[in-house]
Structures are given as C-alpha cells and as structure tokens.
C-alpha cells in the first residue's frame, strides 16, 4: 500500500472515528432543542425544555447538590491527597511499598463494589451509632476516598520530577522548614494541585454509581436525577440537562487546551553562543 493511500485511508478513518465519538453527544444536544417530545423525529427548534429545567425545583436542587458535592470533596481531597503525596515522596527511601498498594486500591476497585461497600458500611454505622446517615455527608466521604489517590499520585509525580538538590539549595539559602514549605514547596506544587483539583472535580461530577449508592433522599445529584428519569424513557428534558453538562465539559476542555498553550509562549529557550 502506498504512502499516499495510507495517509488518505487514515484521514477517512479519523473522521469516521470523530463521528463515532461525538454522535451520541451531538444527538443529545440536537434533540434537547426538539419542539416535540420525541427522540426519533425532530419537530422544530424550541427552548421549552430548557425553560422547564429552570423552573424545576428538583433539578435545581440536584444541580446544587452536584456542585456542592464536587467542590467540597475536591477541596478536601487536594489537602489530604496532597499531604499523602508529599509524605510518600519524602519518605520514598523507606520501605513503603505497602502504601502504594493502599493508594492504588480505590483506583482499581470496580465502582459498583466501591459504592455498595460504602452503602452497607454507612447503613451499619448509622444503625449502631446514629451518625453518617445516607446523604451529602456520606457522598462527600465516598468521593474524597476515590479522589485522594489521584491527587496523591499527581503530587508525587510532580515532586519526583524535581531536582532533589533543590530541597538542599533551599536549606543552604537560609530557609527554615516553614519557609521551605511556603516559598519553595507550595509554589512548585501549585500546578499539580490545580490539575488534581480539576481532575477531582471531573471525577466527582462524572460519578454516578458511587453517588447513587451513598445518596440519601435529599441529596440527589444530576446524574442520579437523569438515571431515575430515563428509567421511564429518554425525554428531551433529560437531553436538556445532559446538554448543559456536556457544555460544561467542553468549557473545561477548552480551558485546559488554552492553559497548555500559554506557558509555551514565554519559555522558548534563548540560546546564545557565548555566555
């Protein structure tokens, strides 16, 4: 097969792939503007479903819960996970291999098992101790538990990429332990902390299964709402909510693309022959 034909073939393949990847999302967006209540025939452009969304208290409540859950859990996760990642890095010369398995555990556990285990655990505790009844609190705890490993690994990876002599240089330059943390460690870790925060947010908003099993009657999130709604069949209302969620994902995607581009502008190395 000639180079040219291969290139053309791959190009066609690529566009087909993109079509495959975006068809479901496009369909959801498309039918959310459907004037009639159908996902098979398009009856004209309309915003009625969006209007209904904003007057639907249940949906607004679910939205608030989703955002609150994501923000709270992510904030807690970057603190706990950041500390864990730092501790793991700082003491990497000791025999801590058991710790890495513990960190991996939430990442490899199937989410259905994770969710069910949390559910029965919280129910048992609620029965015996009267605390941790299923609700936003239990959801936050469950989310933090699966977010922490991601944060820890990201922070650890960033630290591993540092020249170890930097830590010594800071000491050599009169920085006390507190000053080292404030003027060296934290500034260097800021990008890692920001990306792990965004990652944690994404993981939380994307989660359905774990939220479903740890939710209480008042703590429905958008994914749970959608799930209950589509048991009765896909409606344009569901498509409208889904479209809004897809739109927010796209916004994050664009932001991350721009964030990747910007640092490149200023860090072109300026090599001069003599120095």
């Amino acid at each position, binding site marked *: 097969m000639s180079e040219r034909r291969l290139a053309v073939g791959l190009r066609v393949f690529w566009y087909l792939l993109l079509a495959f990847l975006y068809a479901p999302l496009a369909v959801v967006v498309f039918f959310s503007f459907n004037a009639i209540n159908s996902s098979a025939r398009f009856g004209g452009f309309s915003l009625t479903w969006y209007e209904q969304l904003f007057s639907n208290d249940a949906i607004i409540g679910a939205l608030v819960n989703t955002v609150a859950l994501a923000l709270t859990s992510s904030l807690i996760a970057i603190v706990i996970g950041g500390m864990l990642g730092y501790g793991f890095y700082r003491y990497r010369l000791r025999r801590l291999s058991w710790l890495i398995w513990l960190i991996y555990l939430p990442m490899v556990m199937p989410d259905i098992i994770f969710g069910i285990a949390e559910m029965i655990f919280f129910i048992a505790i609620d029965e015996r101790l009267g605390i941790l009844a299923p609700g936003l609190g239990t959801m936050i705890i469950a989310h933090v538990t699966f977010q922490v490993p991601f944060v820890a690994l990201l922070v650890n990876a960033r630290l591993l990429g540092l020249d170890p002599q930097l830590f*010594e240089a800071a*000491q*050599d330059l009169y920085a006390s332990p507190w000053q080292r943390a404030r003027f*060296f460690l934290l500034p*260097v870790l800021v990008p890692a902390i920001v990306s792990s925060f965004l990652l944690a947010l994404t993981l939380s908003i994307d989660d359905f299964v774990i939220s479903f099993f740890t939710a209480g009657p008042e703590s429905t999130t958008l994914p749970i709402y959608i799930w209950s709604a589509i048991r009765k069949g896909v409606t344009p209302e569901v498509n409208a909510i889904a479209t809004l969620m897809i739109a927010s994902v796209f916004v994050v995607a664009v932001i991350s693309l721009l964030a990747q581009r910007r640092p490149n502008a200023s860090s072109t190395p*300026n090599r001069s022959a003599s120095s």
Partner: protein
Amino acid sequence: MADPAVGGPRTESAIQVHAATKSFERGVRAVDAVDLDVEAGEFFTLLGPSGCGKTTLLRLLAGLEQPDSGRITIGGRVMDGVPPHRRSVNTVFQSYALFPHRNVRRNIGFGLEMQAVAAAQIDARVRRIAELIGIDDLLDREIAQLSGGQRQRVALARAIVNEPDVLLLDEPLSALDADLRGRLQLELKRLQRQLGMTFVFVTHDQEEAMVMSDRMAVLDAGRIAQVGTPDAIYESPAALFVARFMGHQNFVPIHGRDAHGVDTPLGRLEGVFGAGDQLLLRPETIRLDDEAKTTPNRFEAVVEERLYRGGTTEYRLACESVRLLASRANRGQPAHQVGDRIHVGVSPRGTTTLTD
C-alpha cells in the same frame, strides 16, 4: 581545650575540620577521620576520584550531613548540630538547583529574602552581584530560558550575594563543554581574588584543580592523602596514589642503591636520589637528543608512539625494556617518527621517590 564561642572573634582559619568521620549504610566510611585547615581568603580545592569522599566532606561543611564524630568549625564558630540554614556558608550545586518557579532576579535574592533583608537592599545587592558576574541583562529571564553557562553564573550569584564566610562549589563546571569550562575557570579565579572570599572547590579533574587553587587536598577513600600547593603536589607527590592521580606515569622500581646512585631496570642511575623504592620521572624532565648530554645518565630509546599536542609533543619510548613517556615543548625541533632511535637523558633533579 576551650571551645571557640559562638559569635566569638574570627580566627585565621576560615575552616577547621578535626577528625571528622561520616559513614553511610553498611559501615562504608565516606569520610574517615579527616583533619583539615582552610585559611581565610584562599581558593582551596578538594580533589580525588569519584567515591573518594570529597563531596561528602563538602556536604559536611554545608551542614547537609552531620558528622558521626569529630568537629567542624567555620568562621570561628563550632558547627555541631547546626543545620544548613543557620550556617554562614553557601553552596553552588552541581546541577545548579535553580528554583524553576522563580526568575533569575528572585532566585539570586532568595537567600536574602529568607534572611528578611529589606526589599530595597535586596534589589541593590542583587543588581550589584549580577553586574559583577556579568548577568545583569538576564535578571528578568525565566530559568528555563537560560543556557548551561548562564545557569552556572546565576547559581554562583545566588550563593555569593549572601556574603558567606565560605563558598562551597560542588563540581560546578563539570557539565560544561571544554571551551566554556576553560573560560569560567579563569573567571572564577579572578572573582575569588576580587572578593577575597574563601572558596572550597570540589573536582575530579586534576588540571582544573591545579589551575584554580591556592592550595589543594587530594583525597583517597575518605582520607586525605596530601595537602599542599599545586606545585608541591604535582612535583613532589607524597604517595603513589597521589602521583598516579596527578597523571604521572613513569614509575621505575629501584632495586638497590649505594652512595653514588641507584640500580633500576633502566640501568644504573648516578646521582643523589631520595629514599623510597619507586622512582617517579616526570615526562617533562626527561631530556631528549642534544639536551640529554647535560644529564649524567644517558640511554638510547626507540620511539614507539608520537602524540602531538600542539604546544607540546609527547613520545612513548622503549628504553632498556622500560616504557617511558617523555614530553617537551615544541620550539621548532625536528619531530621524531615512530621507530627512530634517540638519545635520552635522566638527571636526579626533578625526580621524586615514593614508597609503594
């Protein structure tokens, strides 16, 4: 013995190391009962092969490691248990260790910032040192944009701006290519003299050590083999290890001796030679051709290899079953080719004897 008090008067020595020992895992002694005195204002080099303990010794001075036993005194102050951030010592690290999240200006000013120096003062001092070292046009650049040589200078500025009692340099030039290295060697030497600051420099390159140092110490497996000026160490090495490390290659065993000379595989050598059973002949002291006539011991040798080095030419010679390396400055003498028989002369002046 009275301890020099903290905050007491500065003594003549900038650094005093007394019986310092440091071991790591499995009892390997990286530094083994080392005694050292470095005078204020001198350019002192620690020289040795990798693993000899020179870097560990430097880290003991910096406070990045604490000695298992022994005592270190810097600027008249005893350094027992004193952490790096409380020592008036600064280090230029081998990998430069510049903070990636700060630009050049804020890297240089880091130490001053940590010492709570006033912002205006920091600004002035940073600018002054940058001019001195020749990087004042780089102050607002990001570290990622700098070349190797530029980074090295920033690392230097960052250390010097704090006006420490002692500046430690851990093989700062080893990552640079030869041409840049040569230039920076001279600049560093000039800078040290200008500042009058005590420099302790670590390297494994004996030529670099000789070019830059006022005095140097050769280390071998955690111990100091010899301390002295570059001339003294090169011309009169105290031990075989030192001689070999300084690049010497002509070792001739001495079988026997009497009042007038010594017996060697080369033959009998007339003259007064030092005690010891190995004779060290420095290549530049072996006389060739006509000059051999000025020496008391003359031989014939066959040229095995000719190494032209521009300013000098080296000849590998086979002389009476002994292999010798001779070197002479190129002043227009006709060159010898491989296979030539030439006259060679050895005089006791300029030789050293060592014991194995």
